[in-house]
């Protein structure tokens, strides 16, 4: 059963903009999957449709066989959005515990898991600090920790390393890789093509809400007769 099964998804915004047009994509369970495309290609719209954050115009989204809007499917998804969206009234620890709470965790489990996430993401010194007082890097760490807090089966990372320094990026990827090795399905969007090439087992290229190509990095390079994924990207986007 695929982790994510998107069937003929169309999203037309209220102003008439069509962000996704009859879009279909299947992501097998356990894959580290990259979604690449320029700004406005429809990546964030796609992610928002999977995470119940937009009203889809038509089509169907299934998460491990369950409709994406169902409570079960939602409990299986962990999302780190592109923009920092942390609750300004909560501390680092509260952010994690409350997130765990509304994803159905018990208080004890949420507290234990929050302590674990704080440790993994090196947030211990800021555990009692309210989120507006965190640095950019700390906020990004917390955003990721929050996405992983409820042990999701499908982790969606929307440009998680945008504006993050090299060291932190390496650290984050080490953790995400380990998570993937443990069986978690990862859907990643990024503008760092070398990052996608190094991490992702499969890559999809999208533009103007349509799927252009989808394959392993190696096969994409062969298909586009390119030396790197960056070349593939340039050729694929230029061909539209």
């Amino acid at each position: 059963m695929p982790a994510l099964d998107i069937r003929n998804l169309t999203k037309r915004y209220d102003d008439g903009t069509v962000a996704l047009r009859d879009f279909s994509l299947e992501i097998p369970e356990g894959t580290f999957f990259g979604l690449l495309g320029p700004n406005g290609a429809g990546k964030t719209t796609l992610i928002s449709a999977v995470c119940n954050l937009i009203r889809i115009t038509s089509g169907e989204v299934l998460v491990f066989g369950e409709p994406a809007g169902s409570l079960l499917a939602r409990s299986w998804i962990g999302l780190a959005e592109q923009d920092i969206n942390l609750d300004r009234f909560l501390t680092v620890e509260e952010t994690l515990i409350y997130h765990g709470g509304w994803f159905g965790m018990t208080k004890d489990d949420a507290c234990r898991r929050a302590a674990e996430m704080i440790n993994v993401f090196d947030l211990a010194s800021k555990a009692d600090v309210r989120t507006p007082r965190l640095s950019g890097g700390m906020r990004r760490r917390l955003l990721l920790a929050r996405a992983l807090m409820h042990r999701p089966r499908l982790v969606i990372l929307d440009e998680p390393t945008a504006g993050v320094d090299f060291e932190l990026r390496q650290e984050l990827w080490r953790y995400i890789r380990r998570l993937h090795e443990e069986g978690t399905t990862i859907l990643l969007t990024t503008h760092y093509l070398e990052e996608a090439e190094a991490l992702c087992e499969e890559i999809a290229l999208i533009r103007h809400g349509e799927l252009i190509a989808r394959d392993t990095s190696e096969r994409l390079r062969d298909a586009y007769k390119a030396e790197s994924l960056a070349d593939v990207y340039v050729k694929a986007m230029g061909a539209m």
Partner: protein
Amino acid sequence: MTGNRGLLWLFKRETLRVSKLWTQTVLAPIIASALFIVVFGFSLSGRIRHIDGFPYREFIVPGLITMAMVQAAYSNNSSSVFQARSDRYINDVLSAPMHAWQMNIGYQVGGIVRSVAIGLGLGAIAVPITGTPIREPIVLVAAIGLGLLLFAALGTVVGIYAETFDHHMFVNNILILPLVFVGGVFYSVARLPSPWHELSHVNPLFYLVSAVRYGFLGHADVSVLLALGVTAALAIPVYLWSQWLFTTGRRLKA
């Protein structure tokens, strides 16, 4: 997976917001309303001795408590939901495994808890110093319950529609506050000359103030059933409006 645990945590989050800022959210409105009671109730009671057979300082207590409570229910929820939308951390709740009705109830709670805290605090000060009785406690609970439902839901609705912080202030300052003031908080509508007397009966807040006054004093300008009925007739559709917004995702999801 029922979403009930999520609902309880959303209760806690909305209550935590109130308790973290308790000096602003609870203490300040209690002091402001207590000052109204002292200034108006005691300074004017020499000139206006009785209204409808009640000492003036007793007469104004129900209206002032109503005013403080409904404003708190409204402004708490409108600002909480607006901030959550504006900073987009509402997405963490919208993507969570909770039903739309659970999200709706969860967001109403903060305003209701805050209002009840203000009502109890203000009552604890005002009732002993003015000697205001509580003659119909069941009516009082029903009236306050319906009033809070109406204004907590209205706050949530405005928080969802507001484009800027000014919008939620606008509704409070231009709509709620004037309607409460002319709804008979400080005077008996029955004493107003025509056409003000008739016009007052178009003001929905007049019925809420009347129902709460009946709960305290056992007396109001209109029938208590009419007062409760009008308040319920407003509260239920506004609550359903708020529920509709969560169910459809309109204004919450692009």
